[in-house]
């Protein structure tokens, strides 16, 4: 059976001529029903652009899809009729955004914005749709849903707004939910609640979930598989357990190492990955990560490492992936420390 969502060799550019930025350089991943795929990477690595392309809400221009394919239940979406794609949105795939305050329309009540989908996609009356909207708020555990449905986004707290956003995305009972950094704008305690809620809803409904984040801690708890992105490519892809146990790409290792830990000696320096992500209009030759990689040798500057299979579904795009897998992580990861 075809996976729920299959992204294959997706390529997206922004701008034209000399200014052209290659934002996605052949991204492939898939999500099955009821599964959580975490997409991990720094800002500008192409996580959100991939998601927007899947949803069909990428701004074109400036964006331009130059190649690849996106299939939902085997149906090709790129180049499909825009009306068909619109009908898929909300119904089959939905998305929640990072900053719920700006993602919600400030001049309409939260209930109105949820009810809209029932009115315009289900043909419900205004009144019935409002009742359904209140039920959705109740579903995401917003207290006093019946009263709060009439309130405006600015009257909600940050966590409540993100809950409302989740309620809105689930209104038409989608099979795939894309959560684009859903907890980044929230404080830590609220983050955990929102992640828990998302995970619970995914289990109840058997949805596929794509969780876009740059936060390793968030991923550890809920992800089945993790795809690590760098400069518009997937550089490592495996199930969560083996990523933490045997990170194969120096970038992944760097990400893990850069998380400060409770058992760090006080005053010990942070361990960031040196340098900055490359400019997407001038991605270095060879491995895009080599200017920041402590292990880089000649072959890294000459040859682009392909994403290759290391065994048991673990994929990485590094010339020396096997060596790193064998070594294990530089230090016990947060994940292990926590689960000990």
């Amino acid at each position, binding site marked *: 059976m075809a996976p729920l969502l299959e992204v294959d060799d997706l390529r997206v550019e922004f701008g034209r001529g000399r200014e052209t930025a290659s934002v996605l350089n052949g991204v492939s991943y898939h999500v099955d029903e009821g599964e959580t795929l975490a997409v991990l990477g720094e800002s500008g690595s192409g996580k959100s652009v991939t998601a927007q392309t899947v949803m069909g809400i990428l701004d074109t221009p400036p964006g331009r899809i130059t190649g690849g394919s996106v299939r939902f239940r085997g149906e090709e979406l790129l180049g499909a009729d825009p009306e068909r794609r*619109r009908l898929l949105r909300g119904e089959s795939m939905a998305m929640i955004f990072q900053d719920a305050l700006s*993602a919600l*329309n*400030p*001049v*309409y009540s939260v209930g109105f914005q949820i009810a809209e*989908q029932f009115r315009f*996609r289900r043909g419900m009356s205004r009144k019935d749709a409002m009742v359904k909207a209140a039920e959705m708020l109740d579903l995401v555990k917003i207290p006093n849903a019946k009263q709060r449905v009439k309130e405006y986004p*600015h009257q909600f707290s940050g966590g409540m707004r993100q809950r409302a956003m989740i309620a809105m995305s689930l209104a038409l009972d989608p099979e795939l939910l894309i959560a684009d950094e859903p907890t980044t704008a929230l404080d830590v305690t609220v983050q955990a609640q929102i992640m828990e809620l998302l995970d619970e809803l995914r289990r109840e409904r058997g949805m596929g979930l794509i969780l876009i984040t740059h936060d390793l801690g968030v991923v550890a708890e809920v992800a089945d598989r993790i795809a690590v992105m760098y400069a518009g490519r997937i550089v490592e892809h495996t199930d969560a357990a083996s990523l933490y146990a045997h990170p194969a790409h120096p970038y992944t290792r760097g990400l893990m190492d850069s998380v400060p830990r409770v058992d760090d000696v006080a005053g010990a320096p942070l361990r960031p990955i040196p340098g900055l992500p490359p400019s997407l209009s001038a991605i270095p030759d060879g491995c895009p990560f080599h200017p920041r990689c402590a292990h880089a040798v000649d072959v890294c500057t000459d040859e682009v490492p392909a994403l290759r299979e290391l065994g048991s579904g673990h994929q990485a795009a590094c010339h020396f992936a096997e060596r790193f897998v064998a070594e294990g992580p530089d230090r016990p990861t947060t994940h292990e420390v926590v689960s000990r």
Partner: protein
Amino acid sequence: MGRYTLRRLLQLIPVFLGTTFIVYALVWGLRDDPFAGKCGQRECSPAFKAAITERYNLDDPLIVQYLKYLGNVLTGDFGQTFSGTEVSTLIADAYPITVKLALIALVIEAVIGIIAGVVSGLRGRGFVDSLVLVSTLFLIALPVFVTGLVLRQVLGVELGIIRTSVSGDPSIGELIVPGFVLASLSMAYVARLTRTSLMENTRADFVRTAVAKGLPRRRVVGVHMLRNSLIPVVTFLGTDIGALMGGAIVTEGVFNIRGIGGLVYRGLQQQDTATVVGIVALLVIVYLIANLVVDLLYAVLDPRIRYD
């Protein structure tokens, strides 16, 4: 909201007093001889002088004159011109015409301006957008009396479509071209404001959310984009009502409309305080109330704004 409205209404009082006093002082109190030029080439007769001095309390200090005038206005007596006509009669004749003209202009600028702005804002770069940008620039650059005189000449004299001077009690049809002239400048601003505001909102996160929800395009634009984009436009339109009424002076001159423009103009030339102050006071009130309505409307359009 109620308390806010009340407070705003109370604020009208000092503003009203201040503006009327300034106007009063400017036209009446600050000149040397109130009788200069009043009686043709000759010196006015002492009897006439005495009568006028008596009627307008000319011997009192400025502030006392003003207060006496104000007392009369509050009882509905706007006084008389030097020639003896009741100012209230003049205003009652002229005001409705100007109000009609201003409202026609407001409708024209709102409808054409918003449509042009929305169309160019949605289409983005292209022929329509360039057309709107260039034509609005043209309107902004042209002084209103030039637009007016050209249209009068072309449509009235050459083509004979309109009459070059409108009747004493003009119909809506007669006022459409003058209304267009009066509206032209603001119309250009409205078009540009709508365009910019819409373009800003096109890329807004909440518009993307609306698209991601799978709403029909018409719904995304008409509900999510437009309402947010029109908030600044409504503010502009509201405050423009006052400007349109005051700005009617030029347009009224060009098309010989007997509105308050001509009245104020003649009043100023003759330094006829009662006429000028009476009309300006009414203009100020219209302006203040229009502003208040806009502020209240603002809260309706944008629920983030609450007055309490």
